[in-house]
């Protein structure tokens, strides 16, 4: 049975004639081995195609053009969005060409990459886009064949009349179909009938990426463009004086400009800029707190002991519960600042021409960047065009607009088109980190080992609310107090893949492991008991779906063979974030009489899996990310500057350190709930818990490698 859904009329304002051209980044690669057909160029297809809606045009040649509006940074949205449109259209995927749409608030909404929200947000709209076009094509076919539409079916880009055996390709119908009225409602498929969704469709940019095409922001070179690099101040400092005489001596340096506490060197190519920037002599003076890691250590301690906290959630009476407890478990956890460090450092192209601006580059929030540009220059947003390149990673760093706005400012000053490139050192020292946090947990147990009280106090530096107060185990404990304290610092922070939960989950899932063991219970049974409690007799509000959470816990225990093999020391973790549920089990085994992390099993409930290859990689990538940063990466500060400035001291995980990762998904037909982030949070806890199981030592600080508890863990895994 097909479901009926209201179509979004805004998508179907008919644009008569053919699609507008324009410059798009997109490549067609039919696969190296497939026989060459008569293939039209992208320009030919675009000039002939009829627009059905914001997402979709079809040309008489049968080529289907699908626009993907959201910034692509490796979450694979540029492949999975079009898959959803093509599914409801019943398109032949071989004839689909995908183009990156640029910022266009009239055609699209939420052109953002963040919060794992693109697919959940656009799911219905994308389906309607495909289904409505299909409806129109079928109507056109019914008229052509003079039959009732109910006698027609669709498959792989054709309308089929099985009674007569007639088949009409979509290309032959588009001219008629594009003249028809758009229906209010169209039927959508049952998910069991999906043919494209749920199949491993290859990344549409493979050829471009694997042959070195200019698709990233740093690859932008425009006529008349100059290049620039900027020396930004340490946090809490301002410029006192600038001596640029040595820098100006570098051949090719055309200008040195001081603006807005920044010093920009300007020239035609990158290497002279790098050299000149190093020769700048800038004196800074304090302009607020100039902080170092020792200051933060002191601050954390003070605030944890006597800071005034904001109460985020309170259930029952914790004082009473802890007064009556047979046992109290207390532990503190901490996580450092981290840089996002996408492989492509920050950069942007800006060209201010009078009251018009052209912007090109990699951003996760094109709309915000445009708005901040409009504010800066006091011009309407319509005057600003924003072209999206592919992003060489983002991890939240590109949600800020700082790197766009400074390019705009510089272009205005220079009165030239400019590309600003951040060196790796600029990228790492230039701000917007994952905040540093500390947590203090306390649990009160009664005689039977039941958790009757739970307290969490989080302290963060520019972290906002350090807790997720309505997340598990809230709802399962009678007496609960969750508090948060924030310290404002000049060190800038920003959402970092799975904000807050990327460290909170590690701390909480490690602590629950401690409590389970103190209560004499198996860590999985302990969690399931709490969930049963929350289900039967919920305490206060519950913002997670207990059945879905239990589902992944039980499946992970089964898939990982939890507790069945005494040679394998296992750690468990489960977390709900960004609408999805992920449970993980880390396996440690002995190798050359040293413990080594061999395997992580992950079970994910993110609803319908659109593209299994992409989804699998989101989970594995999230785990590698969570694992690498939990184990290796640290960022400390001295006098307002990070001590780690490049990958020699800022250690990222490498191939040899990555264990086998076994990925499973729950198949439940629920609409997609997001996958860019949810696999990351559980990983640190699963690993720390497995290490405790193997060594009896609890890792309460990240990065693990800097803790003595971790010293005899083997890092490189032997591979057969």
């Amino acid at each position: 049975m097909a479901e009926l859904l209201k179509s979004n009329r805004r998508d179907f304002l008919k644009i008569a004639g053919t699609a507008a051209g324009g410059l798009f980044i997109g490549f067609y690669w039919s696969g190296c081995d497939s026989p060459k057909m008569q293939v039209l160029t992208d320009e030919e297809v675009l000039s002939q195609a009829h627009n059905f809606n914001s997402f979709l045009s079809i040309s008489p040649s049968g080529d289907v053009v699908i626009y993907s509006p959201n910034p692509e940074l490796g979450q694979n949205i540029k492949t999975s969005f079009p898959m959803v449109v093509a599914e409801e259209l019943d398109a032949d995927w071989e004839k689909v060409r995908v183009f990156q749409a640029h910022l266009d608030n009239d055609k699209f909404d939420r052109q953002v990459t963040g919060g794992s929200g693109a697919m959940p947000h656009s799911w219905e709209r994308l389906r309607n886009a495909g289904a409505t076009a299909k409806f129109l094509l079928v109507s056109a076919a019914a008229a052509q064949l003079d039959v009732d539409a109910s006698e027609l079916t669709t498959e792989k880009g054709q309308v089929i009349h099985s009674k007569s055996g007639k088949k009409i390709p979509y290309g032959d119908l588009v001219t008629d179909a594009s003249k028809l009225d758009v229906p209010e409602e169209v039927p959508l498929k049952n998910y069991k009938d999906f043919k494209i969704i749920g199949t491993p469709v290859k990344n549409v940019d493979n050829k471009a990426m694997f042959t070195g095409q200019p698709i990233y922001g740093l690859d932008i070179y425009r006529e008349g463009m100059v290049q620039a690099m900027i020396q930004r101040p340490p946090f809490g400092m301002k410029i006192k004086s600038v001596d640029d005489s040595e820098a100006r001596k570098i051949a090719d340096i055309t200008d040195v400009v001081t603006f807005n506490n920044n010093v920009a060197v300007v020239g035609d190519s990158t290497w002279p800029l790098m050299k000149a920037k190093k020769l700048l002599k800038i004196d800074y003076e304090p302009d607020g707190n100039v902080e170092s890691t020792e200051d933060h250590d002191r601050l954390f301690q003070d605030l944890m002991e006597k800071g005034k906290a904001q109460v985020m959630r309170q259930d029952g009476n914790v004082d009473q519960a802890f007064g009556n407890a047979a046992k109290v478990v207390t532990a503190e956890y901490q996580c450092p600042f981290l840089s996002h460090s996408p492989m492509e450092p920050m950069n942007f192209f800006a060209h201010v021409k009078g009251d018009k601006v052209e912007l090109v580059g990699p951003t996760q929030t094109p709309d915000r960047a445009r708005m901040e540009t409009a504010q800066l220059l006091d011009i309407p947003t319509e005057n600003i065009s924003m072209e999206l390149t592919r992003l060489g990673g983002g991890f939240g760093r590109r949600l800020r607009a700082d790197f766009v706005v400074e390019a705009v400012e510089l272009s205005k000053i220079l009165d030239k088109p400019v590309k600003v490139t951040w060196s790796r050192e600029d990228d790492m020292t230039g701000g917007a980190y994952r905040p540093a946090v500390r947590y203090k947990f306390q649990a009160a147990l009664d005689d039977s080992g039941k958790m009757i009280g739970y307290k969490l106090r989080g302290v963060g530096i520019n972290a906002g609310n350090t807790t997720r107060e309505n997340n598990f185990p809230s709802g399962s404990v009678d007496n609960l107090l969750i508090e948060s304290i924030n310290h404002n610092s000049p060190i800038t922070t920003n959402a970092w893949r799975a904000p807050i939960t990327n460290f909170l989950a590690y701390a909480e899932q490690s602590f629950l492991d401690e409590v389970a063991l103190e209560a004499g219970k198996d860590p999985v049974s302990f969690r399931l008991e709490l969930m049963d409690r929350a289900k039967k007799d919920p305490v206060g509000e519950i913002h997670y779906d207990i059945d879905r959470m239990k589902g992944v816990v039980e499946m992970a225990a089964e898939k990982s063979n939890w507790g069945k093999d005494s040679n394998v020391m296992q750690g468990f973790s489960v977390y709900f974030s960004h609408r999805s549920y992920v449970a993980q089990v880390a396996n440690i085994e002995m190798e050359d009489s040293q413990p080594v992390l061999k395997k992580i099993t992950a079970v994910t409930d993110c609803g319908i899996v659109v593209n299994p290859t992409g989804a699998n990689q989101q989970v594995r990538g999230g785990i590698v990310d969570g694992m690498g940063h939990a184990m290796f990466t640290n960022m400390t500060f001295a006098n307002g500057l990070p001590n780690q400035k490049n990958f020699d001291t800022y250690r990222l995980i490498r191939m040899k350190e990555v264990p086998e990762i076994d990925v499973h998904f729950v198949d439940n037909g629920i609409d997609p709930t997001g996958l860019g982030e949810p696999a990351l949070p559980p990983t640190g806890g699963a690993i720390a818990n497995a290490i405790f199981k193997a060594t009896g030592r609890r890792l309460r600080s990240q990065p693990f490698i800097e803790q003595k508890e971790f010293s005899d863990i083997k890092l490189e895994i032997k591979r057969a």
Partner: protein
Amino acid sequence: MANYSLKINGETFNVDVEEDTPLLWVLRDHLGLVGTKYSCGIAQCGACTVHLNGEATFSCTLPVSSVGSDEVTTIEGLSKEGDHPVQKAWNEVDVAQCGYCQAGQIMTASALLKKNPSPSMAEIEDAMNRNLCRCGTYHKIREAVALAAKTK
């Protein structure tokens, strides 16, 4: 400034640059070969990997003055149609996330397979460990190198 005549992807290019200019920036800024990527600039990540006489080499720390008459191959010159066995395997395994590191990964992998056509997993890891992937596609890279070794 000095003039250098470079052999890149089977062609000869003349550039006039400072002698300490890393090959990476000659490729990107002066020759428009932007497939070779910048990420760290200090020989730590492998994004800038090219072949120098067939050897995987970090171009970000290689001064143009030291290239001489050595043959340089970049990702753009690895194959004419993007159909080098390693590129095909990369497509088959659908390796990339953001893709930014992948040109460098492909160059390291293709240099390895030229020297050692059937590497063991340990040998694949020894060769590939010098290339970072911030997105964490390491499993697929391993799988794709093994596939390329099998299929070519």
